[in-house]
């Protein structure tokens, strides 16, 4: 898999731990996934399962109390493979990748832009550090980026401060900033949670367009299953620091094979399925991250739990793309599909 040319980023057995008050929080505990060029990988999962930490690890933007414990992050830059985890955190090589090859947009555009600099200035910083353009060219590029993002009157807007932008416009400006140097990978951590629904759709449309035009690989972190169904090529379901199920969007959404994936899918309303759909919140709540269960992390909340679940299940390959981390997945899959079949007949 790793040697394939179309893989932009390959993460293997990544572990990132937090150390607070002499206790260890295994926030990301052995995560592996690949991101293909021009494809969108959605990472989903309940709050606190380690999605943001995974993203921050890839960018080496972790807070001081945490560190990469183990694993590999291989980034393909043209024909070269760079091991990101080996680079110094704020060293020159890492900084060259940040903002130019891998860019990130954040959850809340209200707080992610610096209030004392104009939007144009903040976009231009990216270009200043990663391109050889002169000041005039940088300014023109900023304006054209803003206009690409659908911001009206970009020549005027470029000199305005973030506070005179609306939330949706700020997120567009953030995307303009992230896309300034045509990154190979764009990481978006819940980019629309802070925005209202109509603007959400516009932002996703924009991201999808950029992905198609520039062959950018996107890692999209979200809670919204509707968004996943709409945008994802591949999906990874995370629970307590592990990926419990991964595959193409079809694999995961239509043939969920892990009890957690199924529970997660049933816990959210799906747009267009009407009012009478069953919504079952996942029973119980996520365990204390400092006091995690041994073995399968989901076992205490799982209807299928047996003694074998005291040992962490290995990853099983269902087909070429579809993977699951569950001891009982075969029975589960059969039963679930039986039920579906019987429903249909």
């Amino acid at each position, binding site marked *: 898999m790793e040697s394939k040319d179309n893989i932009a980023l390959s993460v293997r057995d990544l572990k990132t731990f937090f150390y607070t008050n002499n206790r260890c929080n295994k926030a990301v505990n052995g995560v592996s996934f690949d991101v293909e060029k021009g494809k969108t990988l959605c990472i989903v999962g309940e709050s606190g399962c380690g999605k943001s930490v995974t993203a921050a690890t890839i*960018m080496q*933007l972790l807070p001081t109390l945490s560190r990469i414990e183990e694993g590999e992050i291989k980034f393909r830059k043209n024909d070269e493979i760079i091991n990101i985890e080996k680079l110094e955190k*704020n060293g020159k090589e*890492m*900084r*060259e*990748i*940040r*903002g*130019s090859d891998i*860019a*990130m947009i*954040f959850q*809340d555009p209200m*707080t*992610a*832009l*610096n*209030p*004392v*600099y104009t939007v144009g200035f903040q976009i231009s*910083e*990216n270009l200043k*550090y*990663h391109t050889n353009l002169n000041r005039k060219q940088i300014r023109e590029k900023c304006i054209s980026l803003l206009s690409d993002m659908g911001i009206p009157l970009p020549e005027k807007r470029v000199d305005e*401060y973030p*506070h*005179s932008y609306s939330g949706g416009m700020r997120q567009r400006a*953030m995307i303009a*900033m992230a896309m300034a140097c045509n990154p190979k990978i764009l990481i978006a951590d819940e980019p629309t949670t802070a925005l209202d629904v109509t603007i959400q759709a516009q932002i996703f449309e924009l991201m999808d367009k950029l992905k198609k035009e520039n062959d950018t690989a996107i890692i999209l972190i979200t809670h919204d299953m509707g968004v996943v169904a709409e945008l994802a090529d591949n999906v990874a379901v995370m629970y307590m620091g592990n990926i419990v199920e991964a595959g193409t969007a079809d694999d995961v959404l239509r043939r969920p094979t892990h009890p957690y994936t199924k529970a997660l899918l049933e816990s959210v309303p799906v747009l267009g399925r009407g009012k009478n759909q069953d919504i079952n919140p996942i029973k119980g709540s996520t365990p204390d991250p400092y006091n995690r269960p041994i073995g399968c992390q989901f076992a205490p909340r799982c209807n299928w739990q047996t003694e074998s679940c005291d040992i962490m299940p290995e990853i099983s390959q269902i087909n070429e793309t579809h993977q699951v981390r569950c001891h009982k997945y075969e029975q589960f899959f059969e039963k679930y599909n039986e039920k579906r079949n019987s429903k249909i007949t």
Partner: protein
Amino acid sequence: MTTYILQRLFIFFPMLLVISFLVYSGLELSPGDAVSHMISPELASTITAEQLDAMREAYGLNQSFITRYWIWLTSMVQGDMGYSMAGGVAISEIMAKTVPATLELSMVALFFSTILGCSLGVISALKRGSGTDNSLTVAGMAGVSIPEFFFGLVAILLFAIELKWLPVGGRLLPHYETLWDRIPNIVLPSLVLALMMTAGAMRYARSSMLDVLAREFITTARSKGMPEWRVNILHGFRVALTPVVVLIGFRLPLLIGGSTIIEQVYQWPGIGSMFIRSVRASDYPLVMTISLMYVFVVLTASLVIDVLTALIDPRVRLGKE
């Protein structure tokens, strides 16, 4: 921006008026009047009540309170500050001698304390939890809690008397010496005066900086691949600066109060020394003029701070939140 400044000025003058009235009333309430202080105890027994009244009449002290206030205020506005009761020297002359000395001292102290306080605060914040941070915090606490006259005396003992590096006190007059010759005299008083302000500025700068460094736009800045100094200074400190400037501004009155004491310790011929002397002598015209000037300085300082804040922060400048 212009309207903003005009708005501020609109509050400025009424405020000055109200406070000048309060100053005047305050002095009216203090026991004894000028005449009773002008007469030496030996003469007091020989002087008659009529003679006293005549003196009061001559100084205009028997007119109504409001009239006296009005006379005082109008002549003040016209630049006529009257005469000191002790020695009958024109107050404007006294001011011309003392104000530059005090301004010199406070401005040098303000400069030192702002530069020093901000840089130490930022270093402290960036190295949070380290040995440097902890020792700076302890030093800052000491700086805030130990009174400045104590520092002043210790500094004299150490640098002037023990090591003989710097003069004990006093100030050289500008037209006597070159700038270079005058520097040794101002070093001790200004540094001691700056010390207290530095400790405060450092604590503000540290907490403001820590606050800002935890904000999300810092991560954004870092995610653009910029070097750490740019993230910390251009994005961090630039935002952290606004509250620090405001807080230093609020502490300007402290600087003035502090300079009164330091001027005493170092025999600096400034307005603070003069103020203490005039209060002791119940030299009313002088006390009032100096008080009013303090008020004027504090109000002007806060006006300047408001305008500076606006210049630094576009959200204030453009009248939006």
